């Protein structure tokens, strides 16, 4: 099978360095540049996407187990990203409810588990953060609002 990450990277760089400059002055030039930047980022994210989701799921299940709770969220039937996301999202909803219940308590056990939940959030957020590729001339349009 082709290397999807490599394809996205090459297509993105082509859009940024070749296509977008030819469209300079036209509104679509910005679209080409942004599309190219995100294709490169997607190529990088592609490789680690399943690994990241599997680790997020394990972290969430570990936290729920630490709380001594049973959770009726079935394990993913496959390693397809859509299946893993569905499992992660169901567990995340459960974590929101668990954290809300912990915040109602004032005992050390609750505070310790809440700290672990926050540590999970910190680690997860760090791993989710994409690194934008360095296209000095193409980032002109990366201002969102």
């Amino acid at each position: 099978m082709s290397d999807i990450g490599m394809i996205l990277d090459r297509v993105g760089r082509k859009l940024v360095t070749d296509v977008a400059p030819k469209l300079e002055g036209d509104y679509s030039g910005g679209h080409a540049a942004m599309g190219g930047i995100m294709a490169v980022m997607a190529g990088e994210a592609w490789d680690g996407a399943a690994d990241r989701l599997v680790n997020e799921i394990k972290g969430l299940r570990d936290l729920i187990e630490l709380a001594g709770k049973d959770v009726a969220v079935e394990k993913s039937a496959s390693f397809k990203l859509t299946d893993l996301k569905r499992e992660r999202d169901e567990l995340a909803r459960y974590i929101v409810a668990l954290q809300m219940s912990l915040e109602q308590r004032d005992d050390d056990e609750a505070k310790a588990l809440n700290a672990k939940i926050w540590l999970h959030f910190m680690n997860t957020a760090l791993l989710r953060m994409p690194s934008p590729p360095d296209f000095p001339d193409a980032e002109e349009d990366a201002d969102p609002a």
Partner: protein
Amino acid sequence: MLESELATTFAAYAEARLPGAKNARVDSINRIHGGASRQTYSIDLAYEDATGPKVKGLILRRDPPDSLIDTERRVEFAAIKSAFGQRGIPVPEALFLETGNEALGAPFFVMGRIESGDPLNPFKLDDVEPHRAAIGEQFFRHLGSIAALPVDGSALADEIDTPAADQCWRRELDYWANEIRSNALSPQPVAEAAIRHLERNPPPPAQRLSIVHGDYRTGNYLQDGAGKITAILDWEMAHIGDPYEDLAWATDLLWCANDQERAAGLVPWPEAIAIWQEASGCTFDPAAFEWWSLFAHVKALGIWVTSEKAFANGDNDDPILAWSGWFTHAAHELMLAMRLGPKYGAGG
């Protein structure tokens, strides 16, 4: 509507509204990057009146099918009118407002074009050199001046409600929490935890009720490349509220490449605060700023999840919305987690 069709229709519209104008035509029309929340066009309108031929530079801001921010153009129009000609704040002149679809197929407003200046990219802030200090001084002075604008009797106060001083935070938090809950395509546990944290630890009441720009930051002003800010733009999120909301948003770390030494990546913090205090008449309160600074991250997440939804649904296929839903969302989620986690014993 094609741009050629838009030009013809707009020329007729403008001729009917400019006193004594005749033979109006659009000499040029270009769509520009004027914020993803409106379709923005730069127009050269040529016409004749009793004094002879004229060419007027205009900016047309028309509603797209969907945008980053769900706002009323009448509010943006009123906010610009409220600031125009006041306290040296450089804003364009608000000219025409249409809230219906009849004239150009969608609601829009028109303002005078500021003829000098370009926006700075907040992700390439070093481009401001060698004028960083000068731009920074004006950035915080104009921000303070907006906070000092009179609310009573302003065009904006005629359009929207004025909250009580102790309810500004509640109203804004409720609004953006609802945006997140209504629009997020996946659970947002960090945002939810942050919302609860902000509810449990409210800020002090607003020191004064102010016109809040709502999106005051690098990227939303023009500068002439010689150290002068020539226009404050993008007033679509303007409202009346606590001036700390603007101060916190303006200095959010996303808009200055995480520069923690200089406020907004422009001037040292003590200097920025001194300028803002003098211009606004407010006294800097670290506790209030801390709350509004965390709130700024939540508000940003509200914008980013809305962007992602609009892109995913196909309502707006501008790739900048995908970028917002991915990169900037991840950035603000990370900021919130790293700032709030240690408050709850994590990672400390």
